[in-house]
């Protein structure tokens, strides 16, 4: 079917899981758009909501894209990994813009709900976290990925484990140091 792209979601996910970096580049905008639409959808459904959580977004975005492409569920972990990355980027970008805005002009800002839907955290400085996570990735890529999946992607322990191809117990154990390390870096 037309739509997506010639390879479709499944094709891109597979290519990406086989190490095709270009596939990731093509996946990112696709996933980004979908997440944003999910956020908008969520806001239409809950017009009074003032906050938004990524978990539902990521899952619903997948379901939508997957339905479109008849992707199989086993591919979803690759998708989660991408979605978590996208979410991280979106959140961090947003935080950056907010910083800029705080320093910048006095003009009343009117923000685009769709863009803001994927937005800043409450008590974590996302810019610092992003930077610390970058360092962690250099020291221990798996732990960094774990944080990305769990925190930005909103994945459960089991989903994180499956996405990374490890046991949930490993996630539970390794998560502790990742968290302590980031906490220490951020305080």
């Amino acid at each position, binding site marked *: 079917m*037309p*739509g*997506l*792209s010639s390879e479709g979601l499944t094709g891109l996910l597979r290519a990406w899981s086989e190490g095709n970096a270009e596939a990731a580049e093509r996946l990112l*905008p*696709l996933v980004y*758009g*979908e997440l944003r*639409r999910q956020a*908008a959808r969520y*806001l*239409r*459904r809950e*017009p*009074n*909501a*003032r*906050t*938004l*959580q*990524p*978990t539902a977004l990521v*899952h*619903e975005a997948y*379901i*939508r894209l997957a*339905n*479109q492409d008849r992707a199989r569920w086993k591919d979803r972990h690759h998708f989660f990994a991408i979605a978590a990355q996208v979410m991280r980027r979106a959140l961090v970008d*947003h935080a950056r813009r907010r910083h800029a805005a705080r320093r910048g002009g006095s*003009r*009343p*800002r*009117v*923000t*685009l*709900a*769709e*863009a*803001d839907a*994927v*937005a*800043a955290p*409450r008590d*974590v400085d*996302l810019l610092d976290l992003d930077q610390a996570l970058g360092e962690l990735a250099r*020291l*221990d890529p798996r732990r960094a990925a774990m*944080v990305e999946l769990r*925190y*930005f992607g909103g994945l459960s322990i089991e989903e994180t484990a499956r996405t990374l191809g490890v046991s949930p117990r490993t996630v539970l*154990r*390794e998560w*502790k*140091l990742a*968290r*302590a*390390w*980031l*906490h*220490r870096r951020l305080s």
Partner: protein
Amino acid sequence: MDPDRFKVVSRIFEAALARRPEERSAFVAEACSGDLSLRAEVEGLLSSHHKADGFLEEPPTAPVGMALAAGTRLGPYEIVALAGAGGMGEVYRARDPRLGREVAIKVLSSAGPTPPGALERFRAEARAIGALNHPNILAVYDVGEEQGAPYVVTELLEGETLRQRLRRGPIPSHEAVRQALQIASGLSAAHEKGIVHRDLKPENLFLTRDGSLKILDFGLAKRLSHVQEDLGQEVGAGLTRPGLLLGTVGYMSPEQAQGRAADARSDLFALGAVLYEMLAGRRAFTGGSDAESLAAVLRDDPPALSSLRPDVPPALDDVVARCLCKDSASRFATAREVASALESLRSSRRRSVAVLPFRALGEDPDAGFFGVALADATITELARHRTLLVRPTSTILRYSAERPDPSEAARALGVDAVVDGSYQRTESRLRVTVQLVSSEGEALWAGRVDTSVEDILRVQDEVARAITAALEVEMSADPARHSGHAELVAGRAYEHYLRGRSHFLRETLDDCIAAADWFEKARETDPGFALAWAGLADAYARMGFDFQPEGNWYARARAMCDRALTLDPDLPEGHYARARLRWSPQGGWDNAGALRDLMLAVASRPSLDDAHLRAGVILYHVGLIDEALLRLRRVLMLSPDHLLARYHVAFCRYHLGADITEGLRVSQDVAQRAPARWITYQAALYQVRLGRLDEAEETVGRMREAHAIRALVAALQGDAPRAHDEIRLTAERRKAFGNYHHNQYEVACALARLGEVEPAIDWLLAASRGGYPCVTLFERDPYLDPLRGSARFDRLIADLRLEREGYRGLYAGLMESEGDGAPTRGGP
């Protein structure tokens, strides 16, 4: 630090955590063996670990959007307050100083990276609705841009969205139709201009304070002709197709859900979903997640409105169902067609009225009876008018003790108006004062009738005539003549009859006996009073069927019934009584004859709810479940709270293998209100079917009519000897129960479960000859599975299917002669 060092740190950290807190420090000191910086690192992390409780555990959440402050100017407009936020932006209440009026402003910002197409979509919205000028579509005044932030200025609405209204519960059906009509009308105007809404839902429909409806948010609207062009640009990079992603799950049509292009008929689907929700008080398509809701849209038909709202007219149910067809080609072709279907529903809607028990002014020792009796008489009179829907007496009994506010009662009873009357009785005179009050509290008519006590008939005549005139009910060309109580009836006889009726409406044994006494008196006073004879027949039949099966009630009832019909061959009450007698053990379970009588009764008296109910009961006994449900729905249309009708609806659904917890609940309700053995039996049967065997045994206790239930329980528990004991007792006590065919069926099930095929078939045969040839149940009941494949069983099923088709044909013929509106007497 490098990755190798990090590995060491993590190993020691994790090993320390695996130890008890008091041992950790010593462990770390030892593990780091003098490497102080390593030790400091690990200790630091351990300390962070304790402080990090909850850190990063919660996913990031964010405030959404930022509101404009009051007083901010946007172009010429001045922001007053934030009114709401939607998917495409925020809505403000604002002032236009030039015209001094308040407006609504929807703002979209270009701050930050605007998603490709969002701006364009915003302008499209403005252009699209700007091009429309319709009372049911939000009016657009202006489009502007302020520092890169485009906005749309629209009329400011006061009221609430349909979503907000729905939170308070479903909407009365005539009101829902009125709203749906406005939606259809607005859509029709948009569609004719080539604009499809694509995201119709309760959030986008606004109910203004003055009762009109506005369609909001044509944000997703596209000019049909441009859809193709827009495909590429809208979401950028050709990554996805807009049809799939626009719309709201639960309202979007199957074609949208599948990513195919939306057209005008997609809006009609959404309209159907919205109308469904207004009537049902629940969404047509739901699921735990969007994906499940999406699947429901593609795959499921929502539960029939009739099962949720029995008072929804079948024609309205049909309109909704047609909107909700999965295949857009099967839907209405245009919004205009929907509008005209709704319009005709509205104009064909019968005015409805309820008569409250009349109040006694001054002392009246008979107040309780006389007030209800006068109401009952007025109801009977009013019910002769087919274009008027009159609530039967059973629905107004609850008002006999307490005086309700008339307009509140009208709303509670779901009628357009109530008759609120009072009377004063002296030795010889009767003065009746009546007013007709609309559900809005408006007095439509008031009047007074003075007459002699003997002349109650005149009262009801005059009152009824005035009321029908006030309600502008079309009079039948040939008003059905007075049934049974011709003008010659002596006033006293009629009064006795009314007293009897007031007892008969309460369904206890004592009241049944008292009713029979009064009917006897009426008959003695005026032997030519057909209604009195019919009342007696009915009372005696009830005695035999419900209370004393051993007594000689049937023979007496039959004599009374014959007399009534000799006096007045068209008397609906007489036909009803005869049907009761036919559909009984003594009457040989004459299904066809009983149905014929009942349809005669409802043809001349459509408000005779007992007759509709009894017809429904017979229909499902002969396997015509759908027909039965429709017939029972007629009862619920007349009396929405009719508990017995609800009970039978649930029992019908049991025959279809549907969820039976509702059946159990209703049975228990009925049992509480009017304890009767058969209802206890029924409750136990549901419990058995739910696998709650112990509870079932507890429910029936030592009830002598319930050996069949015990037999079934024993069989299900594999206790063959006990099952056989109970079956023997069932057979011995057969006379003890009016509806013995249900016992026979339960025994057949028990034997089937015990693997005794031939005896099981014998009992099944007996049940079907004893008034329960319900092949629709036999075909699917898993309890009978051990019988399937037996040649004799298959033959029985085949025979019963033929029989069922016979009944179906018969009933279809009877329905034709019942007609629908025009009075028909002696049809084919």
